[in-house]
């Protein structure tokens, strides 16, 4: 399978013309329209990789489960990317408009939209820019683009030393996956592997104590506590255990989240 990045001028054309062309993303089942809009083939070959497919939502898989599974597939198959390459908009725009065009559309239900007439243009344009491009220059942009999110989540949670490379990600769990990933990856401190391990120890504590990890009820509040401590201390000086302690203290007195 050939993976391509997008030419800079094609990228600029698509983003600039988005208010006029956004309906293509909703109506066009394949990406052949890009050549006409961009006036040229917008892709440049990066390299060949072994074939792999992403899963899409269906009767048995919800979007959280789809994202969870795709994190593993994308990172496992594209782990050769450097961080610098994986922060380049041209790559994710290339993949989102190229080999994964159909998957991104189906992940966001664009394949089921009847007509573009009933959509909120401003909102849809913004969503497409987030989902098919890297909109902005922050870590949030890496999380909002579907394929970039899969890679970066895999990258951050990947455990080279563990036979199950995604054991840490398994602790996070598929339920409410996007919100949990967004809450975690947009905290700057998780970029330090030692501090991320503190988060993982917290997840392990929750697993062992029958506490369901829920973005709103315990994960985000616990991460906020760590951030608060970071207002007074240099978090990087803490050990993983100390980070975990801060998070565990936050949930210890909370009632368990009902599974049902």
């Amino acid at each position, binding site marked *: 399978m050939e993976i391509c990045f997008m030419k800079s001028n094609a990228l600029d054309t698509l983003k600039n013309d988005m208010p006029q062309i956004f309906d293509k993303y909703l109506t066009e089942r394949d990406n052949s329209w890009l050549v006409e809009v961009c006036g040229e083939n917008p892709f440049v070959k990066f390299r060949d990789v*072994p074939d792999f497919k992403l899963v899409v939502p269906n009767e048995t898989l919800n979007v959280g489960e789809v994202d969870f599974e795709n994190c593993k597939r994308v990172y496992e198959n594209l782990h050769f990317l*450097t961080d610098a390459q994986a922060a380049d908009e041209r790559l994710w725009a290339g993949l989102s408009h190229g080999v994964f065009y159909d998957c991104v559309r189906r992940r966001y239900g664009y394949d089921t939209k009847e007509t573009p007439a009933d959509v909120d243009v401003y909102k849809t344009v913004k969503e497409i820019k987030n989902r098919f491009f890297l909109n902005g*220059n922050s870590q949030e942009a890496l999380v909002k683009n579907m394929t970039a999110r899969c890679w970066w989540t895999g990258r951050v949670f990947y455990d080279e030393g563990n036979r199950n490379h995604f054991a840490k990600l398994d602790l996070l769990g598929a339920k409410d996956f996007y919100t949990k990933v967004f809450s975690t990856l947009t905290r700057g401190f998780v970029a330090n592997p030692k501090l991320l391990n503190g988060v993982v120890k917290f997840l392990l504590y929750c697993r062992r104590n029958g506490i369901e990890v829920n973005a709103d009820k315990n994960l985000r509040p616990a991460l906020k506590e760590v951030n608060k401590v*970071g207002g007074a*201390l*240099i978090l*990087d*000086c803490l050990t993983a255990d100390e980070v975990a302690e801060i998070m565990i203290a936050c949930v210890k007195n909370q009632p368990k989240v009902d599974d049902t």
Partner: protein
Amino acid sequence: MKIDNRRLFTYPVLADGRDDYKTCKFTADVVSSFDAANNLRLEVSCQTNCAEINRLIANGDAEYLLHVECPSTIYRGVTARSAKNFSCTIPLDCVRKELDITAFVVLRRDVKNFFCDDWNEDFSGLTFSLSKGSPLAYRRFQPLILPDDADIFKNVGSIFSVYKRPPDAEKFFKPNLEDDKIKIGLNEDDYAVYRRHCDNPTMQPILNAMIILPTLVYVFEELKQPNAIDNHGSKPWFLSIKAAYRRLNIDLMEYLLREEKTSLELAQEIMNLPLTKALESIAHVFDAEDS
């Protein structure tokens, strides 16, 4: 991590623009350079004339710390030392566009009764009990702008071409430097195995260490010969290697003539630790087979 003078601390912190200390200063400088192995090197020098902070550092209660963060990639690194001058190395393939850099003096352990007679009157008569990780002094630098790597998606192996040698040729593999690319001839059997695996990303680092690394050693040995420029100076493969070093502000021929590094070291340097990458790939292959 963005720390600035608007951040409120419950105790005196020494930094430019804060008036918690009357006369003491904390100065820090960072000098950046690039090495041939595609790393950013930061040389850090810190200094304070605060006797109390210096005493804490000397006792091992505090240390200097350089905090580096890249907003574009999810990169965050810290280097902590008790020495005033130290360096840290950041692989350029981990960072992009710009880096936020801050130098600190931080506590390594909890400290009780922290006091300094240079504090502003607001703190007169007070002492503080501070936790590990508390910053005592800091300097935030202007973001370090990184050079834009236009070739970020370029296939680094493109100056090499692997080909099949005739059946009657000797069995050894043999580099040939006479063409536009560095040509590497493999015997028929080796070539068949190579073709089977060369497009597999997991196998590439292993093949690079087996084939490209020794070839580059041969290339650098050749380039150290007296007539190297006459023989190879205009060839595209040579110009590519030269350009790679120029981007690092290194004159390749001068670098070779200084003979500070062996050809094996040079080859590992320009390939950015090929053995490590190959061994990681081998581990990856076997881990995958075990699971």
